[in-house]
């Protein structure tokens, strides 16, 4: 079953109980303002989807995503500070909506698996860190380069990195803003497994399918969510 109507930047399909969300603006799958709107709409639908027992997220083509377009974001966010307070609220609402969107992945009642090939930078790394699992290709490139633009990760990247990699590593990676590859990602506990790049997505889909639909008959995927969210 395929549902692509209404989304320009996303593709979504369900096969055999496994949902597959594809970031669909190749080659970079950059996260435009339109993408953030569509992802917000998707995640609000996600809460009520009954027919999936796991969700895989990947990028179309050779990369996961190059992250948010910081130029577009700066242009969008900056006029507000001249126009006064009303617009300021719009800016905060935009950013808070994005945080809610990413948080709803972490709080999803089914396991969410990021299947990462190629570039996964900035907001893309942030999105991936809100997933429950991260499988990456040997060619994967991660990083939070926002500090190199005079900014900081804006959608929970620092918090998530502290949870996954610890405060010392989060300090180094967020301040330095360097990119790092698959092997380092495993070392920092930011990725769970390295898979040959052409097989990452199929591995993730197979892994998702092997997850039991009901962990125990009376404790559905909610059990996983409750256990994981207490970690």
């Amino acid at each position: 079953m395929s549902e692509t109507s209404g989304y320009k930047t996303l593709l979504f399909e369900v096969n055999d109980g496994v949902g597959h969300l594809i970031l669909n603006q190749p080659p970079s799958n950059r996260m435009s303002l339109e993408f953030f709107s569509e992802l917000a709409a998707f995640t609000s639908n996600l809460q009520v989807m009954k027919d999936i027992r796991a969700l895989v997220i990947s990028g179309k083509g050779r990369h996961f995503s190059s992250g948010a377009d910081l130029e577009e974001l700066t242009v969008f966010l900056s006029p507000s500070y001249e126009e006064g307070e009303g617009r300021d609220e719009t800016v905060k609402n935009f950013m808070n909506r994005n945080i809610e969107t990413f948080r709803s992945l972490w709080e999803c009642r089914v396991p969410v698996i990021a299947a990462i090939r190629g570039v996964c930078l900035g907001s893309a790394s942030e999105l991936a860190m809100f997933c429950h699992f991260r499988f990456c290709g040997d060619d994967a490139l991660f990083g939070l380069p926002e500090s190199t633009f005079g900014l900081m990760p804006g959608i929970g990247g620092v918090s998530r990195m502290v949870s996954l990699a610890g405060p010392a590593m989060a300090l180094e990676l967020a301040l330095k803003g360097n990119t790092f590859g698959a092997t380092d990602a495993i070392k920092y506990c930011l990725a769970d497994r390295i898979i040959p790049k052409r097989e990452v997505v199929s591995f993730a889909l197979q892994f998702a399918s092997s997850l039991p639909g009901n962990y125990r008959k009376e404790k559905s995927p909610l059990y996983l969510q409750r256990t994981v969210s207490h970690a």
Partner: protein
Amino acid sequence: MNLITPHTYEIRDRIAVITLNGPPGNFLKDPEFIPVDALKTLLIKEEVKGVVVTGAGKHFSGGASLEDLFAQANDAALLEEKMNSGKRLLEFIDVLEIPVIAAIKGICFGGGLEISLACDMRFCNSGALFAFPESNHNMMPGLAGSYRLSHRIGFPDSLKMILGGDMVNAEEALLMKLVDRIVHDSDPAEAAICFLTRITEGRSIPVINSILRAIRNAYVLTQEEALMEETRMFCELVAAESRRRQREEL
């Protein structure tokens, strides 16, 4: 240069290096080893981006010397006041919104270990030794050591160290995540200065402050509050960056 106490500091390219001074043991006569206000003034005046705390000579610090401690024991109120001053200094270092690295050679015991635990990271040489020997003398760590140690390395290992008084070497410390890096081929202080210079190069103080605050918030706020704070700081940085670009264009 000297701060009021015997300890010294120097500024190397906006990295402050504070040296605990009194080799070989660098014992701490005063828990407030630098007056908090003096430190605060220095960091602002020199626009410091990072701090390294290290020990003069072969060791970091053996902590408080027992003679000094017993000499002060008769005046309970004074002792308590001194401990509170020391705690305020360590709290200042803990919440400071620029990175602080303890660069540890040799002995790092008791109060010395408590100082290093208030820092964001700990680098050490391969000969470093860590311990809380207080319980061997029927005492306990008095500068929030118990709190900070279990926060960093978890309860079971903390029990071993604080209750058991066990000594831990560099390799064990790395495994326990008590230290973040063992420096083999150079002085840990030099490695720390190099590291801080590298990660703060080209980063403005507001960016550094925001990132450090976001890291701390991950522990002291709920996830929801921490994330909203991150948003707020991000938007402020965007506004500042946009104003900076506009000024450049004019």
